[in-house]
């Protein structure tokens, strides 16, 4: 049984201007200890996926249909009390902006200790030990002194490390990371990516890493999910998807990455822009921007599953 099975998830936002389908029939699975990368442009629905999984959608968003099975448990049926038990203990989340996701008037050590206190009955000394252990795992030097610091006294990289420590302090089965390194500079990003990979591998925690930058998940993820306008348009093992993309959008994403060999040449970008959720084109939503589109593309492309890879396209790129 997979750790997480998401099937045909539909999330809608009922606004005055109409119903926006942020997620349309999103499906993926995640095995224990594996890393799933979810990649997409802004507005593709990647963050909404994260919030839908952990039930943190803000009004007027709600999960309309579909199922989320976590270790065999139907999360959509979970009560608020059950969610309180799950969050921070079995499923944890790391948010994008480390500056805003820590309580500014509490010491970081106390914030970590609180996460433990809520879920486990341990004494204060043991709690402190757990906090120090977590800080060490994420690479914070001098943890005993550092844990008495306030968030504003730490750099961005440190803060995000604290947020990650907060997520893994109770050894959850699943960590959902929503663009955790987007707000950090590149060198820190490289460090944290490396550390996360080690942590996931050593602790057996499954990780969902959401990003708009494919190059970030290239080394980190086992599987890759590419999203566009609320749909998963390609899915598969990361090496295969990047080396031989099947969907034209994925190909476009990969081609837009700057390469040193193309020094001096014009950067490639996919023509056009993401359609607004309230005015999606019929059928394949990528159709207006696709060079391979034909009449059949006005119908919704079904998911085609071949040898562990999936795509939604009537004219997939065929590898030689």
């Amino acid at each position, binding site marked *: 049984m997979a750790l997480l099975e998401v099937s045909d998830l539909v999330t809608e936002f009922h606004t005055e201007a109409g119903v926006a389908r942020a997620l349309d029939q999103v499906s993926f699975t995640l095995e224990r200890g594996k890393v799933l990368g979810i990649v997409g442009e802004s507005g593709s629905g990647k963050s909404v996926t994260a919030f839908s999984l952990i039930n943190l959608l803000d009004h007027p968003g709600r999960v309309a249909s579909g199922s989320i099975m976590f270790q065999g448990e139907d999360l959509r049926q979970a009560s608020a009390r059950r969610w309180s038990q*799950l969050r921070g203990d079995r499923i944890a989340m790391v948010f994008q902006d480390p500056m*805003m996701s*820590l309580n*500014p008037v509490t010491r970081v050590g106390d914030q970590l200790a609180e996460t433990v206190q*809520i879920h486990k009955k341990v004494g204060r000394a043991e709690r402190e030990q757990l906090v120090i252990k977590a800080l060490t795992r994420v690479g914070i*030097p001098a943890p005993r002194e550092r844990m008495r*610091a306030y968030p504003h006294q730490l750099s961005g990289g440190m803060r995000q490390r604290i947020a990650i420590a907060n997520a893994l302090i109770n050894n959850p089965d699943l960590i959902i990371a929503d663009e955790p390194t987007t707000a950090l500079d590149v060198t820190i990003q490289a*460090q944290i990516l490396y550390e996360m990979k080690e942590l996931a591998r050593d602790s057996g925690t499954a990780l969902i890493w959401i990003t708009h930058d494919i190059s970030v998940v290239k080394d980190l993820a086992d599987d890759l999910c590419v999203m566009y306008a609320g749909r998963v348009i390609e899915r598969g093992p990361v090496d295969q998807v990047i080396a031989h993309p099947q969907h034209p959008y994925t190909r476009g994403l990969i081609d837009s990455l700057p390469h040193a060999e193309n020094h001096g040449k014009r950067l490639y970008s996919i023509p056009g822009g993401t359609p607004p959720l309230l005015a999606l084109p019929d059928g394949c939503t990528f159709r207006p921007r696709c060079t391979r589109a034909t009449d059949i593309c006005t119908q919704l492309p079904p998911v085609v599953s071949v040898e562990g890879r999936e795509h939604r396209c009537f004219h997939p790129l065929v590898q030689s």
Partner: protein
Amino acid sequence: MNQIDSLAVKPPPELAPAAPQTPGRLLLKRFLRNRIGSGALLLLSILIVVALCAPLIAPQDPYDLAQVSILEAERPPYSMSEDGQMRYLLGTDGAGRDMFSAILYGLRISLGIGVLSALAALVVGTSVGLVAAHMGGRVDAFLMRVVDVQLSIPTILVALVLLAVLGQGLDKTLLALVLVQWAVFARNVRGAALVERGKDYIEAAIGQGLPPRRIMFRHVLPNCMAPLIVTATNQMAGAISLEATISFLGIGLPQTEPSLGLLISNGFDYILSNQYWISMFPGLALVLLVISISVVGDQLRVVLNPKLDG
């Protein structure tokens, strides 16, 4: 215990972190940079200390009938007593009580009432405000309408009516003051709490599995301290003034526990006979007290406002 060296890139050698500057310490530093605020704080501190130590400092206990003699009545400031034992620094009143001592005791009562009522109103108002912000929807709307009604009625009117119905006394005055003040706290705290609730760290706290009540009291409330403190200081000044007013009108405190307002009221009869000191000095003390609290509160508002960004 954990043998994993989890760093790919060794971080640069860290200097030992300095003792964390708590938000409180930083606040004090910023506050003291302003001279007027610091001056007001000093004055206020002096007044508080003096008020607290009134029994120790006052040359005479003006409400101990054994020490007071009617023969000493209406003596001007800085005059000597009949038997040469005591100098009346600020004169005596119509019953022979030393004004200086009376003012010290009066300060004590005025300050005590102001602080107590403000604190009680803070507890009540903050709870209401937090509940409103937490529950939202109809509960919030209802509570805020109650607050609106409370605030639209003039405070003096409420106090007068209440005391006319309940009668005189220290406890009833306190009750009236609390009733008049809680609404401001409720409104301000609700506003601040709503702002904080929208912020990411609260969302992260929900993501950690913290129960809603814990989030409200241990995460939202501490971050609402800024408007809370400012409101509290302003309300204290207001409470002291209000109490002085109703005591002046004769409905507040009984004669046995005179606040500054009551002293002013007592001295009022003597003003036209040129014995200004019986009213003026308590009045001056009251003004100094209220001004120092107001200025400190104002300075706090400035200092707490450009928040130390995280």
